[in-house]
């Protein structure tokens, strides 16, 4: 047995990696939402002064990455890896951002779970002694996703009540071997789960089994119960998916009702267009950077489980009537004073 592995799929860190800074950049709609004042930058329009939405998404990711570095007081030369991913074909927003950075780059794809995948890998790199500082980031843009996955943006169609609204947002975190900040305590890498959902207008239900499986494994592996966490955040199951996920866990004897929050239900107010909630790589990442990270840092939250979830389909597989596989990674985070706390 590997010394830092627990149970079937959980890794623990004897020396916990520290998240020394977090930055978020969002679009105008997100800026008007309930978390609006918490984001670092809010773009005035969805083009952010660029000529295409793809360029706008890259610019937002670039701004988030630069801000995270600036907040931590680090230069490119001091950062050993840049891990990033997004929703667009060939993850161009991330590679194009990396083009302007002088940092070794690993591109990731985990759909909306990307930031979880990046945090896990970044923590492994630091814990394994391969890096001092690792920059992790992800982004999504409503209009680039809409034209890639659905219809042209000006096509007049009704949104389906179970569908989710892709968030326009980018966020970056700096993981470090030392420094002040919330720490990564444990990581459970998820398995791909497919319960046969084929409806691309219901990604929440497609991802819910993966969320339930990962949370269940995490708790079993570490011998914990939901009450050991101040909050368990799913990253972004929406209303429909959250209900399905809680139901699946309840069947396994785990009641998450008291501690579960969905980042897809935190970023917007009650707007009918949003339907079941928000989604996108940028959603869970920006909510974490803007809201959860500061609350962990101040000690308002002592220990949380962040579980970004992703739907691993493409427009092609949906047209070929394939079902939608889902994935979820759990990252357990603790506040800076965790190791010195009174029992």
């Amino acid at each position, binding site marked *: 047995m590997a010394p830092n592995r627990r149970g079937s799929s959980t890794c623990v860190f004897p020396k916990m990696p520290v998240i020394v800074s977090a930055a978020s950049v969002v679009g105008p709609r997100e800026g008007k939402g309930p978390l609006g004042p918490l984001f670092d930058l809010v773009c005035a329009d*969805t083009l952010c002064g660029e000529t295409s939405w793809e360029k706008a998404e890259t610019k937002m990711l670039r701004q988030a990455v630069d801000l995270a570095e600036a907040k931590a007081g680090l230069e490119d030369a001091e950062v050993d890896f840049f891990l990033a991913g997004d929703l667009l074909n060939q993850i161009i927003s991330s590679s194009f951002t990396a083009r302007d950075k002088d940092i070794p780059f690993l591109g990731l794809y985990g759909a909306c779970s990307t930031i979880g995948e990046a945090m896990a890998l970044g923590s492994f790199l630091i814990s394994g002694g391969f890096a001092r500082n690792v920059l992790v980031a992800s982004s999504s843009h409503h*209009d680039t996703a809409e034209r890639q996955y659905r219809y042209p943006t000006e096509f007049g169609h009704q949104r389906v009540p179970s569908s989710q609204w892709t968030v326009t947002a980018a966020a970056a975190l700096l993981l470090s071997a030392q420094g002040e900040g919330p720490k990564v305590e444990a990581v459970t890498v998820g398995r791909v789960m497919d319960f046969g959902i084929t*409806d691309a207008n219901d990604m929440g239900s497609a991802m819910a089994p993966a969320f339930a499986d990962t949370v269940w494994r995490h708790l079993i592996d570490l011998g914990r119960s939901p009450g050991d966490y101040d909050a368990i955040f799913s990253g972004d199951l929406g209303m429909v998916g959250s209900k399905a996920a809680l139901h699946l866990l309840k069947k396994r004897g785990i009641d998450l009702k008291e501690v579960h929050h969905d980042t897809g239900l935190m970023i917007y107010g009650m707007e009918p267009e949003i339907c079941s909630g928000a989604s996108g790589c940028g959603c869970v990442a920006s909510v974490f950077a803007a809201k959860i990270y500061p609350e962990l840092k101040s000690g308002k939250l002592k220990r949380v489980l962040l579980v970004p979830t992703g739907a691993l389909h493409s427009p092609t597989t949906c047209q070929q009537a394939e079902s939608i596989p889902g994935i979820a990674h759990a990252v357990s985070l603790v506040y800076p004073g965790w190791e010195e706390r009174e029992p």
Partner: protein
Amino acid sequence: MTLLYAFLVGGTLCALAQIVLDLTKTNPAFVMVSAVSLGAVLSGLGLYGPLVEFAGAGATTPLLGFGHSLVTGMMEDVVRLGWFGLFTGGLRATASGLMAAIVFGYLMAVLFNPKG
């Protein structure tokens, strides 16, 4: 009076299409394709012609009217030219809509950008 009939018939066709969309949970493209085909079938059965007489633009404006025009055009050309009319009539009768779609579609793309 035709104005009122146009409103009622056009509105009813749209409402029926909406109900089909909501009940079958398919997507708008499938409903549009089905509507055109249904229009062609109703036209062939001799049902759509009287509806056009009754409701004017209320029957020709929804996509079912597009299917009806295709059939009417083909039938006319088959009478005029024989079997080869099958290849000329349909698009001849619907050319005004298609040409307008190409011309104005291109023009709008030149003039405007999508707002998202």
